[in-house]
């Protein structure tokens, strides 16, 4: 249980700058997901918190204590690796016992903790097996066990579910979340899977090119993306983003139409709206209409791709329509679901 603070953290490998001054305040017991594409610096960020990499500048404090210069073993953190990193020559029990032995706990206490952890993770029948005799899901649980048995201040997860199959991944997602809530341990979870991040975390730190684009609760990322990058990253299918002109007093001109908006000034903008916030409308109500290029029916949703004013626009409907490519479809964007971004900086303006 601990509060973790990151101040102005930077990291360079030679001349290449990987992290550009990250700041974050993470509350005690909070579950943070660090989300981003590969190469955005999220794993480096985690490894610096773990003490496996040195920061170039900046500070990390855990419970008010500056740990920036400390090695991993003095930070009281536990980490679950993407590859699990189980010790192959040790049994499950020895794997879980290893950190306890290094803590110098007495035998009885170690036995008690191992038994509790094994019970919690349904590993009791496998304690005498070697990692090679376990399934992927079981190995994952041993890695979790080795992390939680120490009762560390902070849990770090480096894409822990990416080696599991889809079904198991969904199951482990909720197991990890439940476990974290039960143990009430501060957790930082790195992933490139937005569904994992949005479903598990209290807050999501979305990273891009070594910078934090937005650090907010999952729904805020979806409802009020702070930048064009966030808007395009979060949500499936992704948000429609089109060039537009904001005109003071009139609205937003885009897609050969004008979206009503109480515009204070005039400027170039990027207009965004989510496919699921578009409805099929009558000719009078419609904001725009376009030629249907393709349809995709997932059973619960009908996804359309329209050609509107020379640009592709995605629409995702939760009711069924009998449409064929070539049809002209008239659409309306739901009120209050328009996102506006400064076209040059990409920052949100509404």
């Amino acid at each position: 249980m601990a509060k973790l603070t990151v101040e102005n953290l930077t990291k360079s490998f030679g001349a290449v700058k990987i992290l550009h001054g990250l700041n974050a305040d993470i509350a005690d017991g909070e579950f943070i997901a660090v989300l981003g594409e590969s190469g955005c610096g999220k794993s480096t960020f985690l490894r610096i918190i773990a003490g496996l990499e040195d920061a170039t500048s900046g500070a990390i404090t855990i419970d008010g204590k500056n740990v920036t210069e400390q090695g991993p073993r003095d930070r009281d953190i536990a980490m679950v690796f993407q590859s699990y990193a189980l010790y192959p020559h040790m049994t499950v029990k020895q794997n879980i016992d290893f950190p306890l032995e290094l803590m110098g706990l007495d035998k009885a206490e170690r036995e008690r903790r191992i038994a509790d952890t094994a019970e919690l993770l349904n590993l009791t029948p496998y304690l005498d097996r070697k990692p090679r005799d376990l399934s992927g899901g079981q190995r994952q649980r041993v890695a979790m066990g080795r992390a939680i048995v120490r009762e560390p201040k902070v849990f770090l997860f480096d894409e822990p579910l990416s080696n599991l199959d889809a079904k198991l991944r969904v199951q482990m997602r909720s197991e990890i979340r439940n476990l974290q809530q039960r143990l009430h341990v501060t957790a930082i979870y790195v992933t490139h899977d937005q569904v994992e991040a949005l479903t598990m975390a209290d807050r999501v730190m979305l990273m891009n090119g070594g910078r934090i684009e937005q650090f907010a609760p999952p729904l805020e990322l979806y409802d009020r993306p702070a930048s064009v990058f966030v808007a395009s990253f979060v949500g499936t299918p992704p948000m429609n983003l089109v060039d537009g002109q904001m005109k003071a007093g009139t609205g937003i001109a885009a897609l050969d139409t004008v979206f009503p908006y109480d515009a204070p000034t005039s400027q170039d903008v990027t207009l965004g709206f989510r496919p699921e916030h578009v409805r099929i409308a009558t000719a009078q109500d419609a904001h725009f209409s376009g030629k249907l290029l393709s349809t995709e029916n997932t059973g619960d949703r009908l996804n359309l791709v329209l050609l509107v004013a020379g640009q592709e626009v995605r629409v995702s409907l939760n009711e069924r329509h009998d449409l064929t490519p070539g049809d002209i479809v008239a659409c309306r964007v739901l009120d209050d679901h328009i996102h506006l971004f400064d076209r040059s900086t990409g920052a949100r303006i509404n």
Partner: protein
Amino acid sequence: MSTQSKHALSVDRTLLAFLFLAAVLTLGPFLWIALASFKTQIALLMGTTKFTPVTMNYDEVLFGNTSLFARNFLNSIIVASISTLAAMTIGFLAGYSLLRLRWPAWVVNLFLLWAVVFNLVPPVTLAGAWYELFRGVGLNNDTVALILAHTTLHLPMSLWLLSSFLREIPKELEEAAFIDGAGFVKTLWRVVIPIMMPGLVSTGILVFIFSWNEFPVALALTNNTSATVPVGIAKFAQENEIKYTQMAAASVLSAIPALLALLFGQRFIVKGLTAGAVK
């Protein structure tokens, strides 16, 4: 029988033939030596195939008044064991440094390349220089000199082999150990070394055997009392006669430590020990 299984059968037979050939080529000479060691010198030189086995060659080699074989054997054990231990320790730590301390790639490649190229230099060309060097520091005819020379001679091989075994160990395992609270020494001792055991044992056996059999440098750096087994065996070839059968008996005896090492080591050389560590 289908054509396919006929084909498979003929492939099997061909492969079997190669295995047989390999067995004959490796075992044949050894068997000839082993048989020779139980013959009398006359029986051997006459080329007799039927003979009454005698143990006199062994008696002479082990207990003969003029034989220094027991002494040679002890010297070999000392030289091979200590130089193997030294070459392994230095090779392991140097390899660890090469692979883990973020050296530029060219440094790593140059080192490993040199480790291979070094073996192209015939050791005998170094023997003269070493002889002068050790005489200069008062270590002539001393086993210490041979231990140092063998360590140098076999360090490149040890470094090269151990580096390739180290390379197989995922870095995350060490990182996991650091996070679990282990320091550097404990991580090596409890995680890296146990996982590398098959590689350490096979490298150790190889270096030991190389040192055990090394002849030209040992010949240059030792005298009668500090000679190792190969030098001792060579001395059965004297000016007036070559004691072939005693030589054979000594050769058979000298193979014993290597065989023991292999039998002992086999337990450790289990494949796929890292299975299940990552992925």
